[in-house]
């Protein structure tokens, strides 16, 4: 239901990646890991055209977009089928938690305001922030802001939610509540692509872990395989470096 074929992206003369193929089924959760600067976030941002890919094609649900010939309408349609959770939360600073969640439903889906607010309240309930409906982002903790960020993504009713290092900017004490909410979504079979350095999360939640290095997908496998018996030397080296720092293999 989601398919990337031959996706390429370059910034000027520098090629970030080329020929990326990746596909996932409805309800599947994949986690992309790999060293910093290998294009994981850029790849994620290409899926909703926050970065414009130079080559390849993207399919989300019933929509297929040719990267080099994408029209404005196609890009908008693609963005309606995807939702994005940002590393720095990126909540609308001039809107309350409730309004942040309701904004897309009102402006993009043209839902009546009353109905959108009712739905936003349900979502606030689910993300455990019912009491913060009228709070502005500046008065929320990092963890609360990111949960609202996820709530905003949930409101989009998207085919897939893209998570771009959702816990990297958080103080350690807020990481768990955000990962907890993501696990809750995973248990509800929300299709997700997650770029993260949280290996424990990948191990527990991912259906498939994708290892990316220097603009290439080196290997992908269920976490039980990838973490215990990586096939490629580069994956082994990366895991050796990153795993002891967390909980060990």
């Amino acid at each position, binding site marked *: 239901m989601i398919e990337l074929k031959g996706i390429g992206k370059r910034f000027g003369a520098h090629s970030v990646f080329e020929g990326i193929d990746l596909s996932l089924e409805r309800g599947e959760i994949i986690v992309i890991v790999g060293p910093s600067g290998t294009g994981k976030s850029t790849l994620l941002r290409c899926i*909703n055209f*926050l970065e414009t890919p130079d080559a390849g094609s993207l399919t989300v649900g019933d929509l297929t977009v040719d990267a080099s010939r994408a029209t404005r309408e196609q890009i*908008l349609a693609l*963005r*309606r089928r*995807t*939702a*994005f959770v*940002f590393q*720095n939360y*990126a*909540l*609308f*600073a*001039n*809107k*309350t938690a409730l309004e942040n969640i309701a*904004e*897309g439903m009102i*402006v*993009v889906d043209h839902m009546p305001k009353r109905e959108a607010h009712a739905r936003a309240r349900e979502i606030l309930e689910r993300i455990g922030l019912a009491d913060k409906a009228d709070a*502005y*982002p*500046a*008065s929320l903790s990092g963890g609360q802001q990111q949960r609202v960020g996820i709530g*905003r993504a949930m409101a*989009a009713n998207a085919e897939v939610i893209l998570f771009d290092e959702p816990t990297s900017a958080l103080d350690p004490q807020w990481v768990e509540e955000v990962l907890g909410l993501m696990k809750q979504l995973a248990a509800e079979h929300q299709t997700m692509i997650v770029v993260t350095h949280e290996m424990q999360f990948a191990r527990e939640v991912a259906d498939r872990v994708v290892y990316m290095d220097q603009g290439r997908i080196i290997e992908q496998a269920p976490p039980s395989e990838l973490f215990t018996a990586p096939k490629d030397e580069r994956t082994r080296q990366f895991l050796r470096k990153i795993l002891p720092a967390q909980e060990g293999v």
Partner: protein
Amino acid sequence: MHGLNLDYMAELVPILLSYLPLTLEMAAAGMLCALVLACLLAVIRVTRVPGLNAFALLFISFFRGTPLLVQLFLFYYGLPQVLTFLVSINGITATILGLTLHFSAYMAESIRAAIVGIDRSQTEAALSIGMTQSQLMRRIVLPQATRVATPTLMNYFIDMIKSTSLAFTLGVTEMMGATQKEAASSFLYFEAFLVVAVIYWIVVEALSWLQKWLENRLNRAYQR
């Protein structure tokens, strides 16, 4: 040297105050037109509309680069000689036109800076939920830019109120013109100009309070 003629000053207050509405009307009209024009210029500058951008730059450069008084004389005394249909332009209209063009040049730059200063993540978040450029401008960027630009814009408004006094050089009897006339007939220049100075001062102080109130209101979303 004589003592202050307090009775004369007290008599003068209601006379001068009767011209205050005209002063405020010219400032309000000028501010409204200048805001619209400045927003237009700012959006042209931010989005770099080809052709129009160069015009906006030239416009801003000229109206910031020349004195307001020169501009007023140019519109009122100069232009009608070239564009004869302007012969009927009256002093009040010329003043409002001058204030609009002059202050919009300054205001465009502060509105532009406010728009450019809005964090890119705000735009990206709006795009990610499927908003169009104009939706995200209207709902996310401009409301936030308004808050940033308000203190500066209010300062320009205050400056504009004081600048309406230049209208008397175009023969408009507004507050300053009236003072001039009163003083010329009583010869009590010090008293007359002191009274008008205090009136301007009080009006501006009142606006400063309004400005503080407005800023607090706009800042509500940003308090921790």
